[in-house]
């Protein structure tokens, strides 16, 4: 009888871990200058480029990519919707709006936190709160309602962003557009990477043990309940953890698309839908995906591209291919 065995779990995770190591190597080997890792040992400039710039970008890409992917899996499981991505409940809209306001008004840094990411995070948090209070009834959260409210929230904030664009000074638009395209920040420090990785780890540790519950959710909420699951609690914890982690990711690197949508499907297609494997695998798989996109973006001929462009270019054809193969839903 086909099912997830410990052997399979170990095999897949080991392969993905190797994949992360591989992409880390590739990521530090390519960039917009010709610096190569092997010359880093002899040449100071190359050392700086490889270890103090590229490596940090790769590590952040792995952390952000993994976070977005695991949130994507969570939302797809709880909403029982294969088209869900981490931004679907309004997080990207709120974060974008917050960031635009910060840029427009020229907010200064708050308590040492750079203004724009802080405002983006605040915007995302506010939206999460708003969406859940509108969609939740007491302690019951209806996925259907949540989805609708999230879509509307995103649309509303998108309009808000456009309003700001039309009012903002000509000269600020550059920065605004840059942020919205989504990219791993240039001024990456070890602190940023470590801080985000810590947040990410926290979120991941909350979500991964829910794997069994997510499996049961695929049978329907009543069925899951009748099999002993506390469905409402699973939804609450899952939604909040995933929303907060997504908010953190968007605050750090802007709304990078497709990772959270495509990676879960790719992994499901390859390894099956069992969340006990899918959740941890998505952390690594998402990391590989974004690190790969980042490597491509940084070494694009003609100058570095925003990573959000590359994820879309990589993600869309893949996704269409998946749909054609019929692996997405029954």
């Amino acid at each position: 009888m086909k099912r997830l065995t410990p052997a399979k779990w170990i095999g897949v995770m080991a392969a993905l871990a190797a994949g992360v190591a591989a992409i880390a190597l590739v990521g530090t080997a390519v960039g917009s200058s010709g610096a190569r890792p092997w010359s880093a040992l002899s040449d100071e400039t190359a050392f700086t480029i490889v270890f103090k710039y590229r490596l940090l970008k790769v590590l952040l890409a792995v952390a952000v990519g993994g976070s977005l992917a695991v949130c994507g899996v969570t939302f797809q499981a709880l909403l029982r919707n294969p088209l869900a991505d981490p931004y679907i409940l309004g997080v990207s809209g709120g974060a974008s709006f917050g960031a635009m306001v910060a840029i427009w008004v020229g907010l200064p840094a708050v308590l040492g936190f750079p203004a724009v990411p802080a405002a983006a995070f605040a915007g995302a948090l506010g939206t999460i709160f708003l969406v859940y209070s509108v969609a939740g009834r007491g302690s019951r959260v209806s996925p259907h309602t949540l989805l609708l409210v999230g879509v509307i929230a995103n649309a509303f904030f998108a309009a808000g962003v456009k309003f700001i664009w039309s009012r903002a000074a000509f000269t600020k638009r550059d920065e605004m557009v840059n942020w919205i395209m989504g990219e791993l920040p240039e001024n990456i420090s070890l602190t940023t990477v470590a801080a985000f990785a810590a947040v990410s780890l926290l979120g991941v540790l909350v979500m991964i043990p829910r794997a069994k519950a997510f499996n049961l959710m695929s049978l329907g909420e009543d069925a899951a309940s009748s099999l002993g699951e506390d469905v409402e609690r699973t939804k609450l914890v899952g939604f909040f953890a995933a929303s907060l982690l997504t908010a953190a990711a968007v605050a750090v690197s802007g709304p990078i698309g497709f990772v959270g949508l495509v990676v879960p499907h790719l992994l499901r297609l390859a390894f099956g839908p069992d969340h006990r494997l899918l959740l941890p695998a998505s952390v690594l798989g998402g990391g590989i995906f974004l690190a790969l996109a980042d490597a491509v973006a940084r070494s694009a001929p003609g100058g570095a591209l925003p990573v959000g462009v590359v994820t879309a270019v990589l993600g869309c054809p893949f996704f269409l291919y998946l749909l054609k193969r019929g692996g997405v839903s029954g």
Partner: protein
Amino acid sequence: MLAALFVSAAIVERSSPPARSDLATTAGARPGRLVSITPATTEILFAIGAGDRVVGVTRYCDWPPEAKALPRIGEFNRPDVEAIVALRPDLILGTPSPANRPAVEKLQSLGLAVAVHKASTIDELKSAIAAVGRATGEEAGARRLLLEITRSFRDVAERAKPLKRPKVLFVVSHDPIYAASPGSIPGRLIELAGGRNVVGDSKTEYVPFTIEQAIAAAPEVIIDATAMGDVKANPGYWARWRDIPAVRDGRVHAASGDYVYLPGPRIGRGLREIAGLIHPEVFVRGREGAE
């Protein structure tokens, strides 16, 4: 497995110590390798005589022509940190903007010498030129350039003072139209050149403007700087609105280059060009050759 991954990542991280300053040579009196992250700065460097030491410029740095041959280190607002570091610069120069700040900070954290000077007004531009001169050891060249600019300005301002002031509209984009307000650089140039800006005072340098407002304002001269450097104007854009005096009288002109409204060493030339467009009877406007 995840733990194994995190541990290996942590080991690699720990092997990358926090920023050391060994990359920065003290930017001495004459730093040998210069990188510019802003087109205006590139122009200044060449204009004061430091052009032979410039090793990297942005994609948009196309003046002077020699700059076009230099290695590219990113966009106007997105300097490429890696490419810059790879050029081993002694000094990195530019004008600060929120968009390039992260890159600037990163370069500084890597121990590189970075000097940014604001240049969004004419006064700031003059200070920037002087500062760049000091930083690169070309004080003499900077003084010469400043003198030239000051002379142009004085010359034009004096000759324009007694003249009648026609209404002028200066436009930097179409769809939407953005017009220069008095606080902007072209706004000031218009004033110095003996014109009257139809746009009122505003907190922002460039304000959104509609055709309707243009008709109501009835400028006698329109200077259209949308075709950034491309000499052919887009006369078709305004041609329909013959109610506007400038259109009716054929006084819609394309600015011949972005130096007309961006701060840079060619600002004197820009002023003379604007003066020529506003008062052709007094200022001869021609395709000026290399300064």
